[in-house]
């Protein structure tokens, strides 16, 4: 198992190299790892997997009911949704099928619901139903006044985005994929073997190349001579509310898309919090992952109308992610056989849901570029530590604590993270390199106190393991 974060890259020639270890890049690596004949690498500019757009999304496993019918995105979301739901069940990724309600707050929105219902039929998402105001308020008693009706989409689910990306990457690495972190690609040129990548850690040779560079996919695509799309980062700020707010909401509360754009959503999270967001701000700076006073004020104003009691609860975290929006409506997944190169661009917020289907699609495209995939061997399944509140956490598991008392020694009290879980994460296949990485793997320090009680103790465990 090879995960590197420093030193020179190996001199071997890889069959396929994936640039970018986000949810899409890791899914592609996992898919290709089913082919034991291939020598594979993933290179990632940051110090962990899922560090870009993948870590800061709305954590929803979509059905694709509202996708543009017959688009590539619609197909891959629909297929990916089914694949990921099955994979999550097998791998211990927390998923809750809470269902979504598209709530109409005015006559225009109410009038738009039947059209959306029709669209979802065309997207092969049949179980949806129109609800009147009475039934809506019976389902969501804390909803603010003035809602006229809703569309119920029972298949919409919530998922842990960090565990998903990490599960893909873990399985890929265990199956022999080399993961090279802290490896920023500066340039790419042709070589006798195919591609020569110039990176912050030296040169890497690969026969085939997959561009899953997310926000930077357009830059890499241009370096290979294509002018197919431009990524305009679209910032989404999100507010995570205290677990004590979880009882206020049962479904994902989606806005009805109108000509005036998408509104904000309120959704429970598998970790037991309540999410409010996102904003949608088109920016030029691909590092502008900060939240703003205006963004937070806007979300609280809108959130207060949807679920007034939410504003009385404490805020646990505020974060902002950049979605890789392009000038195109659809994903930009293109094979360039003459270059032995596949671009996976313009993967928007649906990328988490679609990731496994995108990966299968990319593998097929790679075969079209002349790659001999060889025989298939399913990799060993992974069993990820459960971070979801709907499933028993270690501190509730008698047999686990009896076997190992470290699971009964809680360090992070707000999120009930035991010393055993922290120890396991620090010794895992892809160990965290920062406290933030540890947080995404265990939830340690992710709770309402943000480290007031446990921050120093968690840091101590982290530093002891790293020395």
């Amino acid at each position, binding site marked *: 198992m090879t995960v590197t974060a420093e030193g020179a890259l190996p001199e071997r020639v890889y069959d396929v190299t994936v640039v970018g270890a986000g949810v899409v890049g890791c899914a592609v690596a996992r898919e290709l790892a089913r082919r034991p004949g291939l020598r594979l690498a993933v290179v990632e500019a940051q110090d962990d997997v899922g560090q870009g757009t993948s870590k800061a999304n709305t954590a929803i496993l979509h059905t694709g009911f509202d996708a543009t019918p017959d688009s590539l995105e619609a197909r891959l979301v629909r297929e990916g949704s089914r694949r990921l739901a099955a994979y999550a069940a097998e791998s211990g990724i927390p998923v809750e099928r809470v269902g979504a309600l598209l709530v109409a707050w005015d006559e225009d929105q109410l009038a738009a619901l039947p059209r959306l219902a029709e669209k979802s039929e065309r997207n092969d998402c049949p179980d949806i139903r129109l609800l009147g105001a009475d039934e809506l308020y019976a389902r969501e008693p804390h909803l603010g006044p003035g809602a006229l009706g809703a569309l119920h989409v029972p298949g919409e689910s919530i998922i842990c985005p960090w565990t998903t990306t990490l599960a893909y990457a873990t399985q890929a690495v265990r199956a022999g994929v080399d993961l090279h972190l802290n490896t920023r690609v500066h340039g790419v040129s042709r070589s006798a073997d195919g591609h020569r990548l110039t990176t912050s850690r030296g040169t890497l040779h690969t026969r085939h190349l997959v561009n899953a560079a997310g926000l930077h996919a357009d830059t890499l695509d241009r370096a290979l001579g294509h002018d197919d799309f431009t990524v305009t980062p679209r910032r989404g700020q999100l507010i995570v509310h205290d677990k004590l707010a979880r009882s206020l909401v049962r479904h994902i509360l989606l806005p009805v898309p109108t000509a005036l754009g998408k509104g904000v959503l309120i959704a429970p999270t598998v970790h037991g919090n309540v999410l409010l967001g996102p904003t949608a701000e088109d920016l030029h700076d691909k590092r502008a992952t900060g939240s703003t006073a205006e963004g937070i004020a806007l979300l609280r104003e809108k959130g207060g109308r949807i679920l007034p009691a939410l504003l009385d609860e404490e805020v646990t*975290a505020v974060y902002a992610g950049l979605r890789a929006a392009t000038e195109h409506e659809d994903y930009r997944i293109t094979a360039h056989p003459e270059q032995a190169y596949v671009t996976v661009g313009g993967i928007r917020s649906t990328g988490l849901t679609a990731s496994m289907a995108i990966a299968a699609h990319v593998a097929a495209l790679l075969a079209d570029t002349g790659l001999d995939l060889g025989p298939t061997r399913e990799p060993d399944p992974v069993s990820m530590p459960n971070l979801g509140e709907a499933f028993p956490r270690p501190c509730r598991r008698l047999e686990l604590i009896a076997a190992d008392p470290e699971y009964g020694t809680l360090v992070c009290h707000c999120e009930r993270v035991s010393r055993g879980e922290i120890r396991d994460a620090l010794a895992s296949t892809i160990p965290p390199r920062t406290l933030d990485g540890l947080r995404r793997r265990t939830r340690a320090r992710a709770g309402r106190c943000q*480290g007031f009680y446990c921050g120093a103790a968690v840091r101590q465990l982290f*530093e002891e393991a790293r020395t």
Partner: protein
Amino acid sequence: MTAGRAVRRVDVLVVGAGPAGLAAAARLAAAGAGRVEVLDREAQPGGVPRHCAHGGFGTWVHPLTGPGYARLLTRGATRAGAVVRSGVTVLDWVGTRTLATVSPQGPETIDAGAVVLATGSRERPRAARLVPGTRPAGVYTTGELQQAVHLFGHSIGTRAVVVGAQDVSYAAADTVRAAGADVVALVTEHPRAGTARARAQWARLRHGVPLLTDTTVAELLGHGRLSGVRVRHRDGRTATLPCDTVVFTGDFVPDNELARRAGIKLATGPHTSRPGVFASGGVLHPGQRARAATRDGAQAAGAVLEWLADGE
């Protein structure tokens, strides 16, 4: 889960071994309340004073540091006959006065004649204050800072901005200096420091720490590690203070999860909306001083004794 496991019975279960909980337990045990058990989820009992390395605890004739005070209170409760157990987390209610707990020994359900919630309070962290900006490392509350420096000897950076100008903020500034870092400034939205004048002047004149009044933190800057904070004066002027550490102090909120999980309403005194369940200390009066919490605990013990005498 705990189904099928025996339920253990105690007379009084105190949740939280800070000053309020320990003082309540000491008085209850001394008064013959039967088996009095104090649970604390931290590895050591004592609550917040455990990591307040500064003086100001104890009495005028018998001054103590925070850790000294924590030990004194723990000894007091134990000598009176209370059982103090640390490393035990109360997870949830399973009955009116029955609680599910977990510790390295495993899960246990404890049924009590009376329950005292002495779960304390915590400082609002950065996110709960809705301070915009990036999410870099180097962002603390006083609680985390003091533990990092005084319990673990961690380094905390080189230049720190302290947000707040109350007693706790000046204590945080002292901790920053004890860790070998410089205090860039104290920042408060109020027109003056909320501490004794002598203390504010001492910080300003002896240590040269500027106090920025009528000023709020508008944004945190930096990727990876904090690189500065942008501050805004009431008159609209803004400035960036370069620093690698920021400490959010004060603004205490009750740690009332257990009460809220059961829908138990807290008041200002020890009685709650649920008969036989009492509350005491910082969970009622967030940020109160240790000595006041100790008095609070002793007072709550009186209410518990009354309940045990004529309750049920």
